[in-house]
């Protein structure tokens, strides 16, 4: 959804009503995507935080959230990447951070009886999708400045394929999760039924 808006944004700048932005730093949609990325990572992390009951991991996640936010703001302000490409440090830290929160979630899952009904819990599907997607795409975001047909058409091709592939995978897993959990009474904390 968001990426679609980004796509249209670039299109409108090129030959639409946003033509006046041409030549300014707002020409390409990276600035928008970068803000979106920060929010997206924070969203994922806080989503998994909901399912954590251990106070220790919740405080760790809260603290790391603040550190992550500070780092990304610093990168926006000082790195100079904000308008020209995806911010690599934000992406790397964000991915690791999502990984961390999912790891906490899995450990908690392991310690509780929910693990017996894991195939019926929606957050589990979300976690699998998010983990795969973020781990696979981050290397490409680091190289996002090479995403240009004039520099390396082969890279552009690979980039497109991987991003499309991971997106298909991500949303297939989400859809499967939604469908499977559709009939579960409480998909967020499935009860053991034995």
């Amino acid at each position: 959804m968001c990426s679609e808006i980004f796509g249209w944004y670039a299109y409108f700048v090129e030959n639409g009503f946003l033509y006046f932005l041409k030549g300014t730093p707002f020409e390409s949609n990276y600035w928008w995507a970068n803000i979106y990325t920060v929010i997206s990572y924070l969203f994922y992390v806080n989503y998994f935080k909901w399912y954590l009951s251990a106070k220790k991991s919740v405080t760790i996640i809260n603290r790391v959230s603040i550190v992550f936010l500070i780092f990304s703001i610093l990168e926006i302000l000082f790195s100079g990447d904000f308008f020209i490409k995806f911010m690599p440090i934000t992406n790397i830290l964000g991915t690791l951070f999502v990984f961390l929160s999912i790891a906490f979630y899995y450990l908690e899952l392991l310690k509780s009886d929910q693990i017996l009904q894991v195939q019926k819990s929606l957050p589990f599907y979300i976690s699998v999708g998010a983990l795969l997607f973020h781990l696979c795409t981050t290397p490409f975001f680091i190289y996002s400045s090479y995403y240009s047909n004039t520099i390396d058409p082969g890279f552009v091709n690979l980039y497109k394929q991987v991003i499309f592939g991971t997106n298909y995978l991500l949303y297939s897993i989400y859809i499967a999760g939604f469908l499977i959990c559709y009939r579960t009474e409480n998909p967020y904390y499935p009860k053991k039924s034995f």
Partner: protein
Amino acid sequence: MLSDREPLLPQEKLLIVYFIAVLLFFAVFAIVFVVAFQRRKNKFLKERYEAEKRYQRELADSQIEIQEQTLKNIAWELHDNVGQLLSVANIQLNVLLNSTPATYHGQIQETKGIVQESVQEIRSLSKVLNNDVVLKNGLLASLNVELDRFKRLGYLDASLKITGDIIPINSASEIIIFRILQEFLSNVLKHARASKLFVHLDYKEKTLEISANDDGIGFDTSLKTDSSGMETMMSRAVLINAEYKIISEIGKGTQLYLNYPYKSTK
């Protein structure tokens, strides 16, 4: 063409850092996960083991309870039913005594004596069978009643010796100890063909040591028997955390040894 001489691009450095970080995370997570899994598995196994133990204990408890209930019922029946019938028989004999010629009086008196003795026997038997009465009288008094009963039967000479300061035992354990001894005594009576029986209760500082000896024919402890008596005694001893031993040899009598700690966990 790539050359080794050129410095790495910043992206390349970041990529390396990224991969190292991801791999590190994966490794740490895998280790933590395995440890957590193991811990949970062990906890689960322990819980299952404890549940099993608890179940066994409850089973033994309920067995004992059923037995006690049965014994109590028998005691009531003996006391209220058979005892009353014998009393009626006694009264009838009294009536008979007055209406028959004097030549039969001797015999009738004798019969009356036997009937009275039977009433007495049944009273004392019902006393030791009913655990409420055992509880009320305490271990020592009940044991005395039981041994007196044996003496009266005339088969064997039973004696009880108590050493040390008498320490009160919790009543549930008292019943169980008494039942173990009762089982042993009835076995002595039934199988041992003994003429002497000696029971010794030694109240020590932390434990109550009970030993009971007879001079009967003995038996081979390695042989398995059909009777459940031995197993019942054993499981009862386990129930009160007591140390339990039966020593016997053919021709050398039988010895029961029971060591009950006052502070059992139950």
